[in-house]
């Protein structure tokens, strides 16, 4: 029983970080039909921006995080949208898919050549102190990860639902044609989405790097999980990506323990296929609005 609880709690903690990456993924999809195959690298790279801030520029760590966030929002948000995605938007998904795959390779290689090929330790925001709950060991980090992700997601929901800009972004995502004829600056709303995605990715990076270490090759597994979480939860709902992330985190742990550790990724993959067959819009997705 305590094992089971342990698996669930650890799964939720990592799952909450996956959720952050997955939410950004769905936001980009909604705003511009961008399937970002470089999403994992978007989570990998900010850790290095922060490390550059703290180790190369000598900034105190909290300021280095701010520095990393700013650089990420500019490069992975603004530059990515303007120089890479925008010119391809009128040509459908495929060029974007290919360009983001290549971009992922490019980002990996840049980090490897110009920072280091070796994994780097990354300071944790929360202590690694632990306490016992019914025999399961929980660390402050687990709780911290869950809390920070929850706050970020609630803040995002409030922004999207309670502000005029947020609602304009929703309009852009759900019906860009209508948004345009109402005078919403569609391109700017899309840009905001890209910047929010970069910020969420930075947050995920800060949370996952102390556990996962910062390394150029980390993007691939993270990206795949984010992708899975987004599809399972529902491509057109922030809530869906959240549930998808948590679910993948937990199922991954459970299938490793109770199914077979050799087939552990099969659990989430089978879930993906079942979801596509039975509920293609995702667990919490709606079939209205844009369709995949």
């Amino acid at each position, binding site marked *: 029983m305590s*094992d089971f609880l*342990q*698996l669930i709690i*650890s*799964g939720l903690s*990592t799952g909450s970080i996956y959720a952050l990456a997955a939410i950004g993924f769905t936001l980009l999809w909604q705003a511009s039909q961008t399937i970002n195959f470089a999403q994992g690298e978007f989570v990998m790279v900010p850790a290095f921006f922060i490390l550059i801030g703290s180790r190369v520029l000598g900034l105190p760590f909290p300021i280095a995080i701010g520095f990393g966030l700013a650089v990420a929002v500019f490069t992975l948000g603004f530059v990515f949208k303007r120089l890479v995605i925008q010119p391809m938007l009128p040509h459908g998904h495929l060029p974007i898919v290919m360009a983001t795959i290549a971009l992922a390779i490019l980002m990996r*290689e840049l980090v*490897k050549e110009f920072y280091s*090929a*070796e*994994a780097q*330790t990354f300071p944790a925001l929360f202590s*690694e102190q*632990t306490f016992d709950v019914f025999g399961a*060991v929980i*660390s402050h980090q687990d709780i911290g990860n869950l809390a920070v992700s929850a706050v970020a997601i609630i803040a995002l929901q409030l922004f999207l639902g309670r502000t005029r800009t947020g609602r304009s972004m929703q309009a852009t995502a759900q019906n860009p044609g209508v948004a345009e004829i109402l005078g919403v600056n569609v391109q700017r709303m899309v840009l905001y989405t890209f910047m929010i995605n970069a910020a969420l990715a930075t947050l995920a990076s800060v949370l*996952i790097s102390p*556990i*996962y*270490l910062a*390394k*150029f*090759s*980390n993007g*691939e*597994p*993270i990206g795949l999980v984010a992708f899975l979480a987004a599809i399972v939860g529902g491509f057109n709902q922030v809530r869906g990506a959240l549930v998808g992330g948590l679910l993948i*985190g937990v199922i*991954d*742990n*459970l299938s*490793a*323990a109770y199914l077979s*550790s*050799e087939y*552990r*990724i099969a659990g989430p993959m089978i879930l993906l296929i079942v979801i596509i067959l039975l509920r293609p819009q995702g667990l919490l997705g709606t079939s209205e609005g844009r369709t995949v």
Partner: protein
Amino acid sequence: MFKTITLATALATFGIIGAASAETLKLGNVAELSGPGATVGNAWTDAINMGVDEINAAGGVLGMQLEIDTYDTQTDAQTSRALVQKAIDDGAFLILGTVYSSSTIVNMLVTMQQGIPQIVGSESPSITQKGNPYVFRSSFGAQKSMPKIAAYLDEGLGAKSVAVSWVNNEFGKGGHDAFVAEMEARGIEVVADVSSEVGQADFASDVTQLKSANADAIFVYLHEEESARLLKELRKQNVEAPIIGETTLLNQKVIELSEGAADGIMGHVGLTVDAPNPEIQAFAKRFSDRYGYKADHNAMKGYVAIYTAATAIERAGELDRQKVADTLHNMTITVEDVPNILLNVSWDETGEVSRESFLVEVQGDETIVKDMLPAN
């Protein structure tokens, strides 16, 4: 070798073999310079390049300067096969690499078909078990190191049961199979057998399984980063059992990345820069002076590989590949003869190496050599 080198240098000084000294001997280094194996392949390559410069400065091999062409496999088996072929087409006399077993198993078919000696840094047991007469290791295969670990578990710790955590690729699978076989031979029960993926982020589930098995010891056979993640999670879940590993687990990188969680782990190391031998210490210093980072066992493998190649060619006495391969079988190189071979080493008729190795323990962030284990 040094006699010959001295002779050659002397002759060259008198201008007798001036023409010969201008000749070069081409070797090919096929390694993982990009992709997941980049860290490993770069250390291997850097050490080889350092060795080549030293050998050339000392007069080269058979009076010829070594020239090394480096090829990047991108850590991809098929690419490595193509590149070994390319290195041979380019005129490489002998091939160094690859380090990843998955690549070596494929590309050694090419050198075998064409009779080119190849010195590899891979540890998968199967490499020397396929009857390839041209493949040689520069470090132990897992089937050589596992008996030493088994002996330690059995006699040193008196363990009756063990839990195993291994990475499910060619490296891990080979080590795992060799280890489990040794455990069966000694009657130690494997009570948990947990595989993980390369690049796995979350080890909570692995550790939960290892922990609930309540084994007398935990044996870890993962790559460096995954080792660090596992160690952190083991400490987090308060696992008390002794943690035992092989070479990679005791790597300096693991100690650094696991931020204290490696304290107290023990294991067997084939090559370690922390060994108290003067030759190894001198090598480690030259390496870090030149490249600005600390050498690891992969660098040592590369260094041993290039000196093995040079010595074998020198001893064969002529540029005959078959003769070099024959020389390498059942060859022994001692530190007296060639100091930069780092440790006395012998090869058997399958190309497997045998040499002394170390039993080490991590205390704080230091690796302490507890014992020297004889060659087997």
